[in-house]
């Protein structure tokens, strides 16, 4: 089976025997993008969260055959060291990660949230950011999410000027 998709802005074609292979393994093993993590494999922990057509998706429960023609963004495509995404910048400023393993999933979930709700309340965060962090960095993440919203607002305002 041949699957054509766009990953972090670049067209990709993958040959795969099993169309039910999770998108997570295609991204990690075939495209060598190791930022997206395997956590539970049951769409529960959110470590594998990435964007499909701009929406947060658990890539461990997303068969690659459904990704045909879709646009995928992983943590590597969200931003980079020179030009970090507001969420990445906020995560750095608030020194969020402890072990760091689950953080890409949280950041991708947060970026998707800010796309829809630019200034989320604590209730919005509670409802939409339901990933699991075993280091319990939730307190710092909440601060970082609010910080990311502020950075995004500043950036948007500057762009309009």
């Amino acid at each position: 089976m041949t699957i054509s998709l766009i990953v972090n802005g670049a067209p990709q074609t993958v040959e795969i025997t099993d169309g039910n292979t999770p998108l997570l393994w295609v991204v990690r093993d075939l495209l060598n993008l190791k930022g997206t993590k395997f956590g539970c494999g049951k769409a529960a922990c959110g470590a594998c969260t990435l964007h499909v057509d701009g929406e947060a998706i658990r890539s461990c429960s997303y068969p690659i055959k459904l990704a045909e023609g879709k646009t995928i963004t992983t943590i590597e495509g969200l931003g980079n060291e020179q030009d970090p995404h507001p969420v990445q910048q906020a995560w750095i400023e608030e020194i969020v990660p402890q072990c760091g393993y689950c953080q890409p999933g949280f950041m991708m979930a947060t970026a998707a949230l800010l796309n829809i709700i630019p200034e989320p309340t604590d209730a919005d965060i509670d409802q939409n950011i339901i990933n699991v962090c075993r280091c319990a960095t939730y307190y710092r993440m909440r601060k970082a999410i609010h910080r990311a919203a502020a950075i995004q607002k500043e950036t948007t305002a500057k762009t309009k000027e």
Partner: protein
Amino acid sequence: MKKRKNRYAFYLVLAVGFFVVANYGRYNTLEYIPISVTEATNTDTSFDKMMRVLTHERCVNCHPNDNIPKQGDNSHPHYFGMARGKTNMGFDATKCNTCHQSENDAYSGVPGAPEWSLAPAAMYWEGLTRIEIAESILDPKRNGGRTSEETMHHLTEHELVLWAWDPGVDANGVLREKPPVSKEDYIKAVKQWFAEGHRIPSE
């Protein structure tokens, strides 16, 4: 006079004591005779067959009375605090489709089907009797404005409804329970019930 009063009091205490002793076990162990719902409804009428399906957790789990989807054969509240949201599809950025796709995923055990979502709030069935569910599905105010004909087609053709007979495996790789009537018999029963005037029996 006083003697007679004492005698009445003695008999009263005796009677109360006897009542308490005689019923002690019953009230302390909450004994009761369970009424078997299966027994009461296990007949072959089209209504009974249809209702054995519509009251099964594969259907009721997504027709909640509290806006919280249920999961599993034991109908526990959906993990992670998921709820109906504004569009029956979960919250703004974390929605049903964040995890559930258009088909079951055997690797993760996440179920899926086209239009995976909760039934609208007005279509709640959780906690209703068979008769109340039947009244609900015939009431345009609670069935999405459908005519009887449209309801019949919905119940027998919609992919999300028919997913109940292809529920896939759970997170442990164990097959989910299917409704206790085959898909073919269910479809036949629903069509027959509507064709015969969709009468709701009194129970």
